């Protein structure tokens, strides 16, 4: 069980670091997609098939594609000025991440390993998961559904006014 974990986690870290460090936006985006994919593989190795495949589908299939697609459309500028303002962005980045790191370390140290749930719990079957999702957690699913539709309508409205009227020059 441990071997895949030991192989994968450094790779994920490396990819994430690359995503942050890379000057060229497209390389950064692709490395981000790689790191998300590796996380999905991590899920698969510990037997959580559903969450692994959904992670792969949602993140690599949708989020990474949207980031990359926007890069393709806007074709962002050159890397020079991005490298030039790197020192300042480094500082702000550290300021934000240090507290998060602190919280993680505390949780790691304070939490005692025994209380963690037994590793060999019976693997969750999809039907059971489905029932759980739509009976006990139904309100949460419905809330997420409403949120998503609101986002979809917002995006549609937002896209509408910037779209040029398609001039088929009926009468120029």
């Amino acid at each position, binding site marked *: 069980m441990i071997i895949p974990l030991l192989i994968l986690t450094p790779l994920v870290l490396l990819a994430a670091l690359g995503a942050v460090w890379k000057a060229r936006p497209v390389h950064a985006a692709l490395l981000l997609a790689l790191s998300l994919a590796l996380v999905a593989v991590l899920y698969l190795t510990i037997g959580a098939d559903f969450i692994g495949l959904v992670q792969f589908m949602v993140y690599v*299939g949708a989020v*990474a*594609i949207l980031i990359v697609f926007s890069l*393709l459309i806007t074709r962002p500028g050159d890397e020079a000025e991005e490298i030039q303002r790197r020192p300042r962005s480094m500082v702000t980045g550290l300021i934000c991440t240090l507290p998060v790191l602190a919280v993680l370390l505390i949780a790691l140290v304070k939490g005692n390993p025994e209380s963690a749930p037994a590793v060999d719990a019976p693997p969750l079957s999809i039907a059971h998961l489905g029932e759980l999702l739509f009976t006990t957690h139904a309100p949460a699913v419905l809330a997420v559904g409403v949120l998503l539709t609101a986002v979809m309508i917002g995006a549609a409205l937002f896209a509408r006014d910037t779209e040029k009227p398609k001039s088929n020059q009926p009468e120029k």
Partner: protein
Amino acid sequence: MIFATVPFPSFTLESLPQLPKLLVEWLLMLVGAPDWLVSIGGTAAMAGTVVGVFLSAFALLSLVERKTLARIQNRLGPNRAGWFGILQPVADGIKMLTKEDIVPTKAEWLLHLAAPILIVVPSILALGVMPLGREWVPVNMELGLLFFFSVGALTELSVFMAGWASGSKFPMLGAMRAISQMVSYELPLIISALGVIMVTGSLRLSDIVVHQGDFYFGFIPKWNLFTPWGFAAGLIFYIASIAEANRCPFDLPEGESEIVAGHMTEYSGFKYALFFMGEYLGLFAIAGLGVTLFLGGWQAPLPFLGWVPTWIWFFAKLAVIIMSYLWIRGTFPRVRIDQLMRFAWLCLIPMALLTIPAAALWVFTGKGIVSWVVTVPLLLIPWVILTILFNKRLAPATRTYTFADS
């Protein structure tokens, strides 16, 4: 002791495709390899058979496509290489291998190399999950369908890499079109597959095929296609699968009359062949899924044909679907990018969403005559409204032509 007596694997015609796996396992056991090595050897052999079968099908399809297109255009098609052109794929393969592989200077060579590989990988992974015969299911995953769609998402990423890494303008345009097309056609593809999951109750593909097992009144097979919601969802799945595989009339990314070869413009040599392999294997995967979901996978069409090995039915149905793709490719012109989008978002997705309540009603009203009476209008009326709307606003105007005598 080395040749411990291991019974030679007994196989019937039905489990013929299992033969390589059984042989490898028998050999390994003969040699006395440890268990984990035997299982790995078996799965490797199974994977080998799947890849072998579908690569030879790809070679055959590249020849059959050129010959059927030729027949539609009243000519013979390749008949010089080998008897009736049978060696044409070999000739193409050799040509592709020997052609010089040019990488443009402005291209990012790593992404330029990675793109074709990343296009072929997902199609083969998707084929691994497909139930090809009663005893021939390479990987019987409980989440077969979900695995199929999540792996399918990788092709868009590789198309982007191909388009962006080539550095020149036409691939850029091609990549833009390809991604927008694939993203907007993945939605109707998945939604139309939801109906089947709801009715079957499981994501395992072999369960779906078993569910479509017996026959109405003895001779009409209980495939999902012959149910109202199944017919609508099947049609939408068929159209969306054409768009997903970038086949004509939706072959915009590689619209050769506008942007030369889209994201594949800057490729030559074997990388270009990899793109085609990826496209054709993707076509097999999508058509295979269509057959599994709606045409009853490896089920026999008529009850008394049970003795025929089941994987023959799967490949026969697959051939029929792919011949229809070729027929469409020989006839239709290409759609423009905004029409493509409008068709997907305004027509396909609403109709696909409609099939879900129809499937629900179908199950709750007991799958009998009553459910037919309930679901058919639920599907038909919105469709008629949609076409009337289409005729009024978007339909092409009918033109009257005057004739001048002087």
